[in-house]
């Protein structure tokens, strides 16, 4: 304990210099901005800023780059809540209730809860990294292909719980998502599927393309056809601060979301994606009135937002302790370290402790700065809703276009997104929710990849999924969830929800 305090002290000493606090502020401010701009993600931003960091000391460079990353997670929820645009897979579920709250004139409350929940989650996850980084990294190694497959099964079962409407439609949308996810090169054989000889399809559809189309563009088309809703939406911005009732409803989901996110975030390859979905499903299951979900339930914002921010922090663990990047942003961070001659890997912690602990300390400073930065900004963001649609929509579409293009420097991708926009409009018309589709699309390919890899390694022996304890536990949880959904009491509330639809 004393040792830990000493190390943290050393970290704060390194991170609290005037220069490093400045770079931290620059990072989180930039992150918030690109998070708010739909489509522009941290990957493109960090890639652009990488050359700038050559001249900085390594710690300052890492502090700034990681600030951009978790700042973007904060900012991403703003667009999800205000205009129903998930910039990252983790903000998809924030759209469900966050946007519903905004439509009821409670955008300020949703933003406030998201910011405070994220701050708590960020603080907790940072502590977790400080205390348990090494043992947690062992979890990541315990997850073999069989465990990943079972985790994805659990995630998909949870997806069905996600939908607020018809169970049949939710399953149909999840399956459609799985099919869209199949497009691209099969990892195991290297063969292209459903790419129709189009090179741009050989890696499948990028997440940004699918989500911008299904959520953003579809929502804009849909809103254009109804004039009256605009009045309600813009004249009634609502209070900016969560009320006592909101706090009462939110604090437990925040704790649970933080816990889920912290654990799942450690898993490289799909863990972080699952955390916000898992938190949403959990809150819906635990709620005394699940039908409120999708209609603007504050728990549906508090839980997933905390989960995704906690996951964003703990996803540093595999990179810091094992030298293994768990996502594209971490790969860039590894690149930034290598440029400075630091070889990421297990030895960083012992050879460059000031770097390791300084970065951790900076995460806490960054989270504090984010709250200070974001709470006053809520008023400004909410006022954005008063911008007339004729100005707001072209601007959103423009940023979406830039964002989609920046992923692969490909104009074809923008055409794909427009196609998904048309599809999304059709879904709104026939009352199908895009969230289960998106989850199926994200998890499906991961599930298949790991299923086949697990079977390859087990020489075709399918019992591997139940003979490995961790995998068996996850599958048992999935079965339990199905049983719970099938129980009469729950089915009743489902029917009620369906009728309300």
């Amino acid at each position, binding site marked *: 304990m004393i040792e830990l305090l000493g190390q943290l002290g050393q970290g704060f000493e390194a991170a609290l210099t005037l220069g490093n606090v400045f770079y931290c502020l620059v990072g989180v401010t930039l992150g918030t901005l690109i998070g708010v701009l739909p489509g522009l993600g941290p990957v493109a931003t960090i*890639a652009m800023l990488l050359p700038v960091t050559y001249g900085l000391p390594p710690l300052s460079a890492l502090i700034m780059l990681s600030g951009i990353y978790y700042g973007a997670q904060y900012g991403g929820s703003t667009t999800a809540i205000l205009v129903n645009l998930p910039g990252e897979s983790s903000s998809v579920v924030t759209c469900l209730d966050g946007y519903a709250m905004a439509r009821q004139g409670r955008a300020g409350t949703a933003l406030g809860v998201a910011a405070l929940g994220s701050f708590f989650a960020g603080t907790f996850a940072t502590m977790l990294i400080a205390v348990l980084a090494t043992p947690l990294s062992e979890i990541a190694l315990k997850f073999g292909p069989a465990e990943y497959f079972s985790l994805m099964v659990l995630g998909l079962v949870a997806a069905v719980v996600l939908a607020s409407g018809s169970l049949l439609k939710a399953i149909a949308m999840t399956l459609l998502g799985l099919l869209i996810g199949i497009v691209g090169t099969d990892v195991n054989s*290297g063969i292209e599927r459903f790419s129709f000889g189009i090179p741009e399809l*050989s890696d499948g559809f990028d997440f940004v393309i699918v989500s911008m189309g299904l959520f953003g563009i579809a929502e804009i088309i849909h809103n254009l056809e109804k004039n009256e809703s605009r009045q309600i939406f813009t004249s009634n911005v609502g209070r900016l601060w969560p009320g006592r009732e909101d706090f009462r409803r939110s604090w437990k989901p925040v704790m649970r979301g933080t816990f889920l996110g912290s654990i799942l975030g450690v898993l490289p390859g799909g863990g972080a994606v699952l955390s916000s979905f898992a938190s949403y499903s959990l809150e819906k299951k635990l709620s005394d009135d699940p039908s409120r979900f999708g209609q603007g339930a504050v728990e549906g914002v508090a839980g997933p937002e905390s989960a995704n921010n906690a996951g964003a922090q703990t996803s540093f663990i*595999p990179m810091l302790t094992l030298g293994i990047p768990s996502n594209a942003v971490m790969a860039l961070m590894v690149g930034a370290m290598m440029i400075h001659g630091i*070889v990421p*890997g297990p030895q960083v912690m012992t050879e460059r402790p000031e770097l390791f602990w300084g970065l951790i300390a900076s995460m806490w400073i960054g989270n504090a700065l984010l709250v200070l930065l974001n709470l006053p900004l809520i008023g400004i963001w909410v006022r954005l809703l008063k911008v007339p649609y004729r100005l707001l929509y072209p601007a959103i579409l423009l940023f979406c276009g830039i964002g989609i293009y920046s992923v692969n*420097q490909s104009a074809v991708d923008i055409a794909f997104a427009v196609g998904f926009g048309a599809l999304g409009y059709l879904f709104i018309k026939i009352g199908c929710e895009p969230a289960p589709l998106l989850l199926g699309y994200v998890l499906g390919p991961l599930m298949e990849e790991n299923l086949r890899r697990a079977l390859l390694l087990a020489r075709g022996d399918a019992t591997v999924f139940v003979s490995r304890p961790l995998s068996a536990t996850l599958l048992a949880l999935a079965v339990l969830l199905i049983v719970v959904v099938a129980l009469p009491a729950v089915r009743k509330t489902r029917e009620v929800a369906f009728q309300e639809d």
Partner: protein
Amino acid sequence: MSTVKLPRFTRRAALIAAALAVLTPFAAQADNWPSKPIKLVVPYPPGGAADAVGRIVAEKLSERLQQSVIVENKPGAGTAIAADYVAKSPADGYTLAIAPTGQLTILPHVQKSGRLEPLTAFTPISQVAYTAVAIAAAPNFPAATLKEAVALAKAKPGDVTFSSSGSTTIIHLAGEYFAGEAGVKLLHVPFKGSAPAVTALLGGEVNLAFDTLTVLAPQIKAGKVKGLAIAAKERSPLLPEVPTVAELGYPGFEVPSWFGLVGPAGLPKEIVKRLNGEITAILAQPAVKERLAGQALQASPGTPEQFAQRIRDDYAKYGKVVRQAGITLE
């Protein structure tokens, strides 16, 4: 028509033509090149060795050419999208590319359609840097040396697994190449990129992993995995205690993963010469060597002819591996 008059006339015509060409903005002109920013295509997303090489080259070339050189990441289809894009760009010296080994010497063997033969679709300018492929074993794998690993694989054919960063990558080919040379059968387990492939090795899900020193050296150094051998001519200064594959009884076994600078086919000779000279000068700078070393890369300058020969040799080598191992995308 006298024989004296003709040369004078043609000389004048040539002078006029040259003057016109200088004044014509659309003509590809080697004389005033580069007169506008140059695009340097990198076939992978930001992060990773190819991107790092691209960024170092772009930064240093900008300084020396007094003209911006902009990195454009065009990922997708295992470098095929970038390859196609570069091959179809005008050969005016304003579109250059960082080409990894696989794009030039493996892709043409496995592609079904749109295959680009390396020496007819591109102009080789210079090799830039290389690193060796290494072989590592999982901590829970009983073999501690390459010899023991081969013995295990011989005892139980197809039982020993190796992870790679993907099907038909240089890493995959390295594994198949070694299996062929050693006369064993290894089970290939492909992953999406190096990070999950190495995680699987650390966790003991697979027995062996082939990957570049960039990826494996830190893990071997930290003692998290067992370094069995390096597929290079000589031992690496990064891991002086790890023997080469050749030392262990497979003479000539070498799998360098290199990055070269290429342009579209038919790049003007003067531009190739100028660029090759600049790259050679850049790679001689200690600061550049140091930054490459950060990625476990070694500078490897050479003439365009040497680079072309390298491509020809590796193209033939991997063509043979692809056929022998029966790797197809059908």
